[in-house]
């Protein structure tokens, strides 16, 4: 029982570290399921499991980026909890990930509550400025912001790991084989979903050809993602110098207002 408590605290602290990455370190990407799950694997002494769960959850969450006000299901939280379950019970990476998704949705709800609480802090801060308590005003940001965001991760992870491990183990013991095999297929479809989400943010009209090109290089020629990326950088540099390069810029300057737009629009039609 004591070790469960210790494990729950350790995994909770991993969660705090990952959350504070985007709060205090400008999102260096420690706040990603792959990193969170690997760190859980390290603190719980089962790195291979951490890596496997991290890779699986990372693929689903690729497209779930917090942009603006929309809060996506919190897959970092989900990934950390899933990795802990996989390390502490017999659950496979796929099973652990399926358990993680409800936790991720709960994390999303909790995130909404906490981000609303911070709205109130903003108004407290306004009041402190009026009173001339400048230090108190910015402490709302650097002290209370840090505390609230840390709790936002620590609490659900701690509770899930502390209370949930035995329950999860009991559930895992009851799962039939066809279900486990099905979850494996589901994880592949979830990966497709993650990539599709990413595309829904990136794909502009006329750019689809680059997606297909990347796919074809990897599927027909068997290139790795690294190789595809290197070709992509080279191709992008060549094309951008054709599209925006010196020739185009000079024409635009020489041709006056109307000519400014023509070269660009012609290019758009081609792709």
């Amino acid at each position: 029982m004591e070790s469960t408590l210790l494990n729950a605290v350790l995994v909770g602290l991993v969660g705090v570290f990952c959350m504070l990455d985007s709060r205090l370190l400008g999102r260096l990407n420690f706040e990603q399921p792959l990193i969170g799950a690997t760190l859980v694997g390290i603190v719980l002494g089962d790195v291979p499991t951490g890596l496997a769960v991290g890779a699986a959850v990372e693929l689903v969450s690729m497209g779930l980026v917090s942009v603006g006000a929309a809060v996506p299901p919190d897959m970092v939280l989900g990934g950390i909890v899933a990795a802990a379950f996989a390390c502490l019970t017999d659950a496979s990476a796929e099973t652990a990930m399926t358990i993680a998704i409800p936790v991720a949705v709960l994390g999303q709800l909790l995130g909404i509550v906490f981000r609303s609480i911070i709205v109130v802090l903003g108004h407290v801060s306004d009041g402190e400025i009026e009173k001339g308590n400048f230090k108190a005003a910015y402490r709302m940001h650097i002290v209370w912001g840090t505390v609230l965001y840390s709790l936002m991760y620590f609490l659900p992870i701690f509770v899930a790991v502390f209370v949930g491990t035995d329950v999860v183990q009991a559930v895992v013991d009851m799962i039939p084989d066809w279900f486990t095999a099905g979850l494996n297929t589901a994880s592949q479809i979830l990966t497709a979903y993650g990539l599709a989400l990413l595309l829904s943010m990136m794909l502009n009209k006329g750019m689809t050809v680059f997606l297909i090109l990347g796919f074809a290089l990897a599927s027909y020629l068997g290139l790795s993602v690294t190789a595809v990326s290197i070709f992509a950088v080279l191709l992008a540099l060549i094309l951008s110098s054709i599209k925006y390069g010196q020739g185009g810029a000079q024409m635009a300057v020489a041709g006056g207002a109307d000519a400014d737009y023509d070269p660009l629009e012609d290019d758009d039609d081609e792709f």
Partner: protein
Amino acid sequence: MADNTAIESTSKTKKLWQFFWRSWAIQDSWNYERQMNMGFLYGLVPTLDRCYPDESDPKQLEAKKEAYRRHMAFYNCTPQTSAFVLGLSASMEEQYARDRASINPDAINAMKTSLMGPLSGIGDSFFQGTIRVIAFGLGVSLAQQGSILGPVLAMAISIIPSVLVTWFAAKLGYEGGNNFLQKLQSGNMMDRIMYVCGIVGLMAVGGMIATLIGATTPATFSDGTLVIQDILDSIMPQMIPLALTGIMYALIKKGVKTGWLLVICIAGGIVLNVLGILA
């Protein structure tokens, strides 16, 4: 109010490091109302305290309150590129504190507001859309083979550009960001960066569809003599992952809610597996 010693005596390097660290901490109190407003204020606190050091002077105290209030306005931008806005705002604030006739303080917030859009656009598509996708695309493919190098490499690829961009953004912003900005906007530079990021990101995702999903079909025709997967592979390898991604993309574009899509993925996976269509 001519006490500018604090502004002039602080070294530029120290100021730049302050923009650097504080732009990274800008999301620490992200909220639904004014988003990164307190984060932005926090970024300018050292500057404002240098501009108005003497709180016992009622005139300075009022000016300081006014400046603090000014930077509690709505703000939202990528942390790394925010260093540019912090640097530029700080140089404008210092100018305003030196000579209150030289700058209209409303121009500072107007500048912030006009920079948020383009700088988040570039910042997000560069860090979230390109760097993150490549770093974790590579990281996941190594991690799937059980290599700890996966996460290590992903972090290295993430951290290096982040540090470089933040530092130079702070430097450019503080040392004459206005000139730089005009150059950037006149020469199509913004469009060009977005275009390059778009191509690289999309090609990487295309490669990931082909390498990371790996769904196949176990289905056969006429007593196992005709393996459907072999036929598909001879036409286009990894055709099933491509189709799955296409279907999910169409569902997202139709506006199906995230929760339902997750249910569809999990239930669909189990059903298709039990029916022997996918494995």
